[in-house]
């Protein structure tokens, strides 16, 4: 093994990337865990907002619909980086004002919570559109049947709407999840130590830029490819009752 690495000229890279302290592999993996944690949280938070937003856009009153249209348009037109900064400052200001009003000291917001809040609001706008489209794609008869049998709205949501729309929503949601994992890199700019920032620190202190950035790229790519297979499975499972949509789908 050592000889092979030596002949390929990779011995140095391997020692830099090793998991023990002289190498930086442990830092990279810790960054990856942080990134995934935030991506998962933001994706879940975004799904909740998206479900509410989709319901509001489909069944809400005219004012609510206008407000949601403004929300999704603004979020989709302004760069994530700018939104992250605005939401980060607004969020910490609001929490600190609430804390001082209730007589507590100023609180330091943890990076994970801030990241989830910020990326979740961004994801929510995209999720609203994805889920709205998916709910609209459900044959209306299914929802009418549920209502005709007197199902309460929440039960309809749980038993009919969500299972029936899963197949339509999964491709869009898979895309959103990939955007979430890649958007966590933006938190590097506000100084949160996720994978990209850890990589830059490691690269900066060892001057081995290519080694570390390529390694981080490989990690991101692994996550992407792995999620791709998972979502393909989920979609297959969610569509198990439906006729094949290969022809004339979308």
């Amino acid at each position, binding site marked *: 093994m050592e000889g092979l690495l030596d002949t390929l000229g990779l011995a140095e890279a391997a020692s830099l990337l090793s998991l023990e302290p002289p190498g930086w592999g442990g830092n990279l993996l810790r960054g990856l865990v942080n990134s995934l944690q935030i991506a998962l949280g933001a994706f879940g938070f975004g799904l909740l907002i998206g479900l509410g937003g989709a319901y509001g856009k489909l069944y809400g009153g005219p004012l609510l619909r206008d407000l949601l249209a403004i929300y999704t348009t603004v979020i989709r037109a302004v760069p994530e980086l700018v939104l992250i900064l605005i939401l980060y400052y607004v969020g910490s200001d609001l929490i600190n004002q609430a804390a001082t009003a209730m007589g507590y000291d100023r609180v330091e917001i943890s990076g994970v919570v801030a990241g989830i809040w910020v990326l979740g609001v961004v994801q929510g706008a995209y999720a609203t559109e994805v889920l709205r489209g998916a709910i609209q794609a459900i044959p209306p008869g299914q929802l009418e049947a549920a209502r005709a049998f007197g199902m309460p709205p929440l039960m309809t949501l749980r038993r009919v709407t969500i299972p029936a729309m899963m197949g339509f929503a999964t491709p869009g949601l898979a895309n959103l999840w990939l955007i979430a994992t890649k958007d966590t890199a933006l938190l590097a700019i506000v100084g949160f130590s996720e994978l990209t920032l850890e*990589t830059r620190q490691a*690269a900066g202190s060892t001057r081995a830029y*290519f080694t570390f*950035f390529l390694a981080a*790229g490989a990690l*991101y*790519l692994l996550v992407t490819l792995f999620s791709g297979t998972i979502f393909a499975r989920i979609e297959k499972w969610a569509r198990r009752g439906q006729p094949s949509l290969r022809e004339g789908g979308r």
Partner: protein
Amino acid sequence: MSDLRALLIPRRLFLMALFAGFVIWCALSLRWDWLPQYLPLAIEGLWRTIWILVVTVVLGFMLAVPLGLAQAAGPWYLATPARIFCTIIRGTPLLLQIWLLYYGLGSLFPQYPWIRGSDLWPYLRQAWPYAVLALTLSYAGYEGEVMRGGFASVQKGQLEAARAFGMPRFTIFRRIWLPQAIRNVLPTLGGETILQLKATPLVATITVIEIYAVSSRVRADTFIVYEPLLLLALVYMIIAGLIALMFRWVENRVPSRRREG
């Protein structure tokens, strides 16, 4: 006309009044005294943002056409590299790609004397070539995938008819295949161009002074947080709106049988 009338419903008038109130409140009670001092820099930054956007979109699209064609109809030795390129670009964060090119290539080039001695060196020492390269490759990667779908969606009969009339292969591509592929993907391209606009602030992290970097500098110099960011968001919304309008105008000029509603 109907667009205008849709805005004059009471609740929308109410929302607009609310928005106008917000704007007036912003203008009166927030601090804008920094604006005259930074305005020249902001205009320069805005110009640089638009310049980077236009250059990378044009160059990226020119790269995307062969990438899409290779994937849609090329032999495997062209299709596989093209697919791998698109997967890598789409599977890793743009910020990482920018930093890889800037710090990686930037630390590699000075080691070679012949690069240092070449005429290109004054450019390679600056940040913007790396920014343009990274954004171009990124746009090419995403659009290569879009163009693959565009090329594949052109009906076979069209190409067969052209071939039956004895059109040379390049003429078929230029007159029949490419125009229809582009027409099919125009709506997607508009959205992707707005995404590209939203990617431009990332180049501020490698010291390119575009409009986002200007707002960061205002924040660092004056400790004013919200005002530059709000103005920045407004600027991006206006540019995004202009891009959307431009693409809608192009779409309306392109003859299409499939227009609905």
